């Protein structure tokens, strides 16, 4: 329980770092850190398959995509960067305060909640649920992936009119 609280706080802080930092590269790294902490939480809660997916795809692939996009854009001049950084601090200083107030309110006005758990599924194996019970999800995933490939071809395919 204690380690779960520690991981939840770490995840919140990593997300806060991703939002607050002025450098985009640091934001991408902080996002990857959030994914890593989330995957450790999933391992803790007994969801190893989802944790592996989260670690490899969200912490790995999405970070690579973010860093590629950042490397394809260019850096601002130093003077403009400093001005924008000051502007960011003015816009974002309220977020930690808001989070602290919201967290404190949740802590102070804690109500006992009646948690009704539904009936457990008889099939407890992930592979059986994935391949037999939720087969439609897999078809949907394949269609979404094909749509993604189509989108990538359209967006990154180059412009034939310009001879590229």
């Amino acid at each position, binding site marked *: 329980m204690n380690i779960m609280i520690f991981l939840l706080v770490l995840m919140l802080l990593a*997300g806060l770092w991703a939002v607050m930092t002025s450098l985009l590269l640091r934001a991408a790294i902080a996002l990857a850190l959030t994914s890593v902490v989330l995957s450790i939480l999933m391992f803790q809660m007994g969801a190893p398959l989802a944790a592996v997916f989260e670690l490899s795809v969200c912490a790995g692939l999405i970070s690579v995509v973010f860093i590629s996009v950042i490397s394809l854009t260019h850096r601002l001049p130093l003077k403009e960067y400093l001005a924008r950084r000051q502007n960011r601090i003015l816009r974002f200083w309220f977020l930690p305060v808001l989070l602290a107030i919201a967290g404190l309110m949740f802590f102070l006005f804690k109500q006992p909640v009646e*948690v009704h758990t539904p009936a457990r599924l008889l099939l407890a194996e992930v592979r059986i649920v994935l391949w037999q019970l939720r087969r439609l999800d897999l078809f*949907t995933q394949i269609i979404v992936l094909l749509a993604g490939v189509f989108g990538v071809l359209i967006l990154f395919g180059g412009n034939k009119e310009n001879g590229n």
Partner: protein
Amino acid sequence: MGIELSQIFWLFLTFFILMLIEGFYCITMTYNLLRVLIGLEILIKAVTLFIIFAGYISGNMALAQTVVITVIVIEVVVVVIAAGVILGFFREYDSLNVRNARNMKG
């Protein structure tokens, strides 16, 4: 057991809502398109956390893992397509500032 379950539920609900606040604040207060995407990612992570917690609390962890895998696949496609759109925007306007989108046709 009931009280303990209630406490764990309250704890996760608190962190879920705090992550949602973080994500929505990031999306609404920034002008950088990449940061909007980062805010969206944080929102998706909050939802993923709560889905896994729902599986943990109800004992249907296999179903929760299946749903999380679906969420992750859709998340990747959304991020890749959004990254492509952002790069196209950058090539057109030489900036990631979302206010430039006002100059678009239509």
